[in-house]
């Protein structure tokens, strides 16, 4: 009886648009991954199968995440955040060094990237903080000090790995969530001025040489076609080679002849653009745009502050990932190693995005409750 009611509720309240949007992206992503890695001769050739496994696994986790009322996460908010920090610290102890940075922890034959999950833990922690701290007046810098601390700890840890891209995303999620709140004008001004002072300091003392060179190459790409600019240059040529309707599935020559670097992790969009052309790209960008717009809609209809911040947090996660990756590949932003949600290969990344979608689903499904829930842990 009760189960039947639950099921029918789930059916009535299920967010089909969100589900279809995410599912479509995942399918296109796997198909594209197949094209992107078909040229490899090594183990890379099989990564699309791995990606499917991750998607299935992620789908199951996301269903569970969506099934448990998100208000339970609110309660566990800081505990989850703490768990994430511990994982980040563990990276330095157990981490595996790949291409000069340690980002992974091995569990059996899998390697997890805690910094990916940290994004979700950060969103939950920030959501909890804002949930508990309603303000009718504009927030001052003092009010923002604690959230800033919440983001600063994982950012510093991630920068230590070093992983500029993830640190950037963490920061941008924080900025997006802050943008949701009302901030006093004086505080904004102070922030802008201190930012102007900090940027040169960060450039001089924090960034590594290879990170700096990526930015200088972005600002003057033609100067160094064979060096760091090589990736960016070939990605642009491949995208342009797609033309209006593309070369056709698995026929993009620049990918097939290995001119694209990291075609499965950072540059899958270049493969997609070459195969499917401008027409395909419009569809893909619209899909990401839709996901972002839909999370804003979910946030706007959320019944509590926690849900709203959660939705905006996940939405901003997808948005910044998509925007930075597309911007990087098309050459309007510097080369920063940021994955394209559901397009790039990677278990941690796929899990993170799918859990995020589960959270969105969670918030979306529970916007219909008029009264506080009673009794059931499963959101009755």
């Amino acid at each position: 009886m009760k189960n039947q009611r639950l099921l029918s509720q789930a059916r009535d309240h299920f967010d089909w648009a969100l589900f279809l949007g995410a599912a479509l992206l995942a399918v296109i992503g796997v198909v594209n991954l197949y094209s992107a890695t078909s040229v490899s001769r090594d183990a890379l050739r099989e990564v699309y199968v791995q990606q499917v496994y991750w998607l299935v696994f992620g789908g199951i986790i996301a269903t569970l995440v969506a099934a448990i009322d998100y208000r339970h996460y609110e309660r566990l908010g800081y505990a989850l955040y703490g768990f994430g920090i511990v994982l980040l610290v563990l990276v330095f102890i157990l981490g595996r060094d790949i291409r000069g940075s340690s980002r992974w922890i091995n569990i059996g034959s899998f390697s997890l990237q805690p910094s990916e999950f940290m994004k979700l833990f950060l969103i939950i922690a920030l959501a909890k903080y804002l949930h508990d701290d309603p303000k009718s007046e504009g927030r001052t810098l003092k009010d923002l000090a604690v959230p800033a601390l919440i983001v600063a700890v994982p950012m510093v840890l991630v920068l230590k790995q070093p992983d500029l891209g993830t640190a950037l995303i963490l920061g941008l999620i924080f900025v997006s969530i802050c943008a949701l709140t009302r901030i006093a004008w004086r505080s904004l001004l102070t922030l802008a001025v201190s930012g102007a002072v900090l940027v040169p300091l960060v450039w001089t003392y924090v960034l590594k040489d290879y990170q700096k060179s990526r930015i200088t190459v972005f600002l003057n790409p033609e100067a160094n076609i064979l060096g760091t600019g090589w990736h960016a240059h070939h990605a642009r040529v491949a995208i342009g080679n797609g033309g209006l309707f593309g070369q056709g599935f698995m026929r993009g020559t620049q990918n097939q002849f290995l001119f694209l670097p990291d075609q499965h992790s950072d540059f899958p969009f270049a493969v997609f653009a070459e195969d499917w052309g401008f027409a395909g790209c419009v569809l893909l960008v619209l899909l990401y745009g839709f996901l972002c717009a839909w999370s804003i809609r979910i946030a706007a209809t959320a019944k509590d502050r926690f849900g709203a911040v959660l939705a905006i947090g996940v939405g901003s996660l997808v948005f910044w990932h998509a925007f930075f990756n597309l911007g990087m590949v098309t050459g309007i932003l510097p080369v920063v190693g940021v994955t394209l949600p559901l397009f790039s290969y990677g278990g941690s990344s796929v899990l993170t995005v799918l859990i995020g979608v589960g959270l969105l689903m969670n918030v979306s499904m529970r916007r219909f409750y008029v009264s506080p829930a009673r009794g059931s842990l499963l959101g009755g």
Partner: protein
Amino acid sequence: LSELLVPRTDVGEFRRRFKWMALVAFLAFGAVLVRLFQLQVLEGAANAATAHENIIHRVLIPTTRGVIHDREGKVLASSRPAYDLYVVPGRVMRSARPLHPGRLAEPDDITDTWPRIADVLRLNPEERARFDAKLHGACTTDEDKSPCWRPVLVREDLARDVVAELKQHENEMSGAEVVRVPVRYYPWKNLGAHAIGYVSEIDAETLARVRPPGFDKLPESEQQKLNPLRYENGDIVGATGVEHAWESYLRGQRGWEERVIDARGHYRTGPEADRLKDPSSKQDPIPGRDVRLTLDIELEQSIEKAMRVQRAGAVVVVEVRTGRLLAMYSKPDFDPNDVSGGGGHERLRQTVSRLHEDPLMPTLDKTTSGSFQPGSTFKPFAALAALEERKLDPDDTERCDGLLVFGRRVFHCTHVHGRVNMHEAIAESCNVYFIKVAEAVGMDPIAKVAEEFGLGEKTGLGVNPEAAGRIPTRSFYALRFPGRFYQGYTMNSAIGEGATTVTPLQLALAYAALGNGGTLYSPELVRAVETGDGAIVQDFAPRVRRKVNVKQENLARVNDALYGVVNEMKGTAFPARDPGLDVAGKTGTAQSAPVAGADKDPRMADWYRANHAWFAAYAPAKAPEIAVALLVEHGGAGPTVAAPIAMQIVREYERLTAQRAGKPGPPPKPKPTPLAVRTTPAPPPPAP
């Protein structure tokens, strides 16, 4: 449980922000779309072109250089494969590579293969140490572009058994690569080297001329004009001889085709790759044309044998009725294999410096590039001038006392001839008679006849740089030695001394013209141009340069005297006479000008002081087929040194001709009689 769940909270604070966030997302994705539109639609064509350039590589297809044959079809120059060994330092000497912490060593990544390779090559300890140091030095880093990965040339032109051994143990020698390169091959080695020539790598100066900076960006027609033979860096080009002069025929034309290439530099094949290239966009290579020479390499071989004891000299054998050259022999010579890259760069370097230092200049083709005083071989032309000018009766005699005093100068004769007429003066080579001829006729009429016969004038052979020689005239002396004209100049002009010089080729052609009744031919070294399967592309007919303007009766008189030189008891060449042969000719013994630097080597000083020995002839005397001009530099007297060699060459010619026609050759030459020894005239005294 409901107590556990938080109460709903006020979301009013956020409400006004959502629209702005949507706007930011809209603008951001809008910017991406605009950028995509720019890249894919506006700049799509340009990007597609760049993408096409990335994957299409124009590959040159090598052509094969034409073969050079002799008149009988024997191969004089062709190409053979040579095998060079390269090693990649980082792969043959892995221990030299820097160690990276944490890099996993692969099982087969540990042992060095270099010691094994060095063993197979049988490198001596010194060489081995040198390469050890070189390979070690290359691997200070092992990044992608480090010299650690650049192949190093270890040995050129490996012996066949070494190649076989390397191939057999390929698995134990990873990092070694045997590269096959074509090398020009001259199976007859030194024989005919000057005429055939040799090849070498294109030099920087020529390359800069045919491929100036920016050449690749010029339009096709401009490129064609500048560089019609499509030379590239490292190309092999003909350097001398026929290889050089007939380069445009021999070279062939490289083809090219488009290949699909990936970013790692690997060529891709298969239908997927074929789809991407334009099938019409290719050009097949055109193989070089074969060139058939007029030379007879076996005759050349006989000449080499006949000249073996001599240190330096030149021989030209020409067909009397065609002007085709049967032999062009110049001594000392060289092995064109050594200077054409066979045996490697090291041998090339050594050979070139050795040839360069040799005072006898082995690379100089003396048949065309060397001019010498013809001595008495010039007398027939002086005699013809006298007959044409009707300045004296050939039957009148002059008295020879063995010398002629003229002012403060003394002209010597070989011996006291007594009274001689023109016939005897030629047959017995009397200088005194001809000095009187010169006085009677004058310098310019003699020069006129000599020039009619092509002496002192380039023959236009077109192979190797040609010396003009010189037949002096009064105006020459007026220009060269202004002031007083000495009668001595005129006297020298009749006996082929003084300023008179000719090349052996000119002399052979002039004697051919004497023998054939006055037709001077242009010399020909190339008989035909053929395709690889023997079809004739271009055939070269004999070319008459001119009919010599002398009366037949005068010519007959001189020819009669030339017959006497060999066949009359008192003829200068009679001791060298071969009863089985029918030869008419003239000996010559020319005073040689002092050679600069001759004193440097005392052992050579005597040799340098000796006279040049000449013999110019045609045979058979009744129906001439060939003319021979033979010079033995500093060989001594023409009759004793040059004439016997020339006889031997004529005999060899007869033998080869008969052998090829299936007939018996000339009868064997009898042993020299004591008489012949006794009548050998002494060499003339050195020049005053």
